[in-house]
């Protein structure tokens, strides 16, 4: 068959191209534009090349925030994933109790992020907060998250666990309900105990949802901003200042748009690289799993 040569076909791609241009390419280019120039005002821009990038990569503030960020994401993943699985395993499988527990578990997910920060800001206060008062007066620990770095850290981590473990629970719960009864029956016939049922049936069958849970929780926690901003404001000092807070400080606090743009691009590349790695792990581990 003879093919008709016509470049008009490119027009068919145009809508998508425009959409992507407006949603991604143009905003990104604006940032790139700032990152390679020093702009004082309209018509007063000076080409600086990679200077802002070098400055940012050398910056102690950025490195500190990056280290804190990695520690934070690792901590909450290590706690939230096992905790989420454990809660999902403990939840009833059917009846009214199942519906009730699902609603109760999902509740924190429905609360706006800045409200979560506010709730915990008050809850953890030593004077008027129930949680802070309990730890201080009932347990006799001198707890003060506004002054002690470790206390601030623990508070931010606990808040994130409270807010986001439900997501892991819901994913795992759905994964568990999808396992056919025959698997449990076969395990009973094969004489497998509770631990072996978990290790050889439930955990392998949860692998798909767990990878999604890890990916979502990693990306979300790596970009966390609102809750610690409301709760601790990044303090005390810079103890709970994560990457996005550091960025906002440079861009809006100091109005250093050049360095902030370079910072944004570095931040973007880190998340892109990490997501790429996770995605590839997900595809590779998922292979050969079709039942």
């Amino acid at each position, binding site marked *: 068959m003879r093919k008709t040569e016509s470049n008009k076909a490119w027009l068919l791609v145009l809508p998508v191209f425009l959409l992507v241009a407006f949603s991604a390419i143009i905003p990104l280019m604006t940032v790139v534009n700032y990152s390679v120039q020093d702009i004082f005002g309209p018509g007063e821009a000076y080409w600086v090349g990679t200077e802002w990038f070098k400055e940012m990569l050398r910056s102690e503030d950025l490195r500190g925030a990056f280290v804190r960020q990695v520690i934070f994401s690792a901590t909450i993943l290590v706690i939230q994933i096992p905790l989420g699985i454990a809660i999902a395993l403990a939840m009833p499988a059917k009846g009214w109790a199942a519906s009730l527990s699902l609603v109760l578990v999902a509740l924190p997910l429905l609360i706006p992020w800045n409200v979560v920060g506010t709730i915990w800001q008050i809850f953890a206060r030593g004077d008027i907060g129930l949680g802070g008062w309990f730890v201080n007066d009932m347990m006799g620990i001198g707890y003060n998250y506004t002054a002690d770095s470790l206390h601030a850290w623990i508070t931010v981590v606990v808040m994130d666990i409270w807010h986001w473990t439900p997501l892991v629970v819901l994913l795992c719960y759905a994964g568990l309900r999808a396992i*056919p009864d*025959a698997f449990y029956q076969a395990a009973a016939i094969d004489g497998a105990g509770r631990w072996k049922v978990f290790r050889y049936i439930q955990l*392998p069958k949860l692998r798909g949802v767990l990878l999604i849970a890890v990916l979502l929780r990693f990306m979300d926690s790596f970009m966390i901003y609102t809750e610690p901003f409301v709760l601790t404001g990044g303090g005390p000092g810079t103890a709970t200042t994560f990457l996005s807070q550091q960025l906002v400080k440079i861009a809006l606090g100091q109005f250093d748009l050049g360095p902030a743009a370079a910072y944004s691009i570095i931040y973007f590349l880190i998340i892109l690289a990490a997501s790429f790695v996770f995605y590839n792990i997900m595809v590779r581990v998922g292979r050969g799993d079709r039942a």
Partner: protein
Amino acid sequence: MARIEFQRLAHSYLADPVAPADWALKELDFAWEDGGAYALLGPSGCGKSTLLNIISGLLRPSQGRVLYDGKDVTGLSPAARNIAQVFQFPVIYDTMTVAENLAFPLRNRRMPRAEVRKRVAEALEMLELQPVQNRRAAGLTADQKQKISMGRGLVRDDVAAILFDEPLTVIDPHLKWQLRRKLKEVHERFHHTLVYVTHDQNEALTFADKVVVMYEGEVVQLGTPQELFERPAHRFVGYFIGSPGMNFMGCHLVEDGLGIDGTELVLYGHWAELARRHAKSRLAIGIRPEFLDISPTPRDDAVPTRLMGVQDLGNFKLVTVRLGPHEVVAKLPEDAPVPTDEAHLVFQPEWTRLYADDRLVG
């Protein structure tokens, strides 16, 4: 290996069963001999899976007892009963290799390593799984996975019985035949008591020495394939086994014979005596299409009927004729002369059965 016996066994999924329809499994009393190959045959929802789960211990019956070799196991768990079960959809442990899958039930029972290795090697050989023994079980085809499920039962040579719950449902037709033959082979070699649940009559008849036919929660017949074919104990068996099923015609007692409803036809001889004994019941005679003959020309022993249609199925013909209000199908050999408009139906009295209230009486 064990003899499996049911005593006044019945089950209902309702807490408080009243009507007969509330019982998924109506009271039954019978025994399966040690080392036999049995098939549980019946349509969907007839209670065969319920019975199987009661045998394996996954389900506790509402009433009655299950005995293995005379020992009451009604309250025991599946593991304690030492039973193996193969399910409709292959159950494998995804993260283990094929060999590890087979070793799993033995390791759970803390068998010495060397013994486990020996048993697994035997099972792998028997099921022709050696080429894939070190592959992860997750990547295999459905029939190989089903063999693994089977293998987990075979490695335990002390199992009381191996139960199969429609194991070939997800297998390709040409592999079904192979797997069924493998099963037969395994049975001949090890003489496990095998129980095979299916709704496919061919599967049941080729696999089992004895077939248990179930209908609406009741065992309607327990017999060899030949018995099911020649003397169906219940109208359902006649209709369910055989292709096409048995012909049934309602009938009634006349002076000294058995009259077929809506016709002038009367069967004489011992039929009258039989019919008299069951005069209060709903009577019907049944005859298999295989035992009917059709003659294009009138004969002394034939009754004239009206030809409805002929279906040529290659190696045989199905001829449908009308006898009064009844449609009767006859299965004729391929080379039999085909009647054109006149068809004369020839009964063979020795293959004609009488049913009273759906049950065989003669």
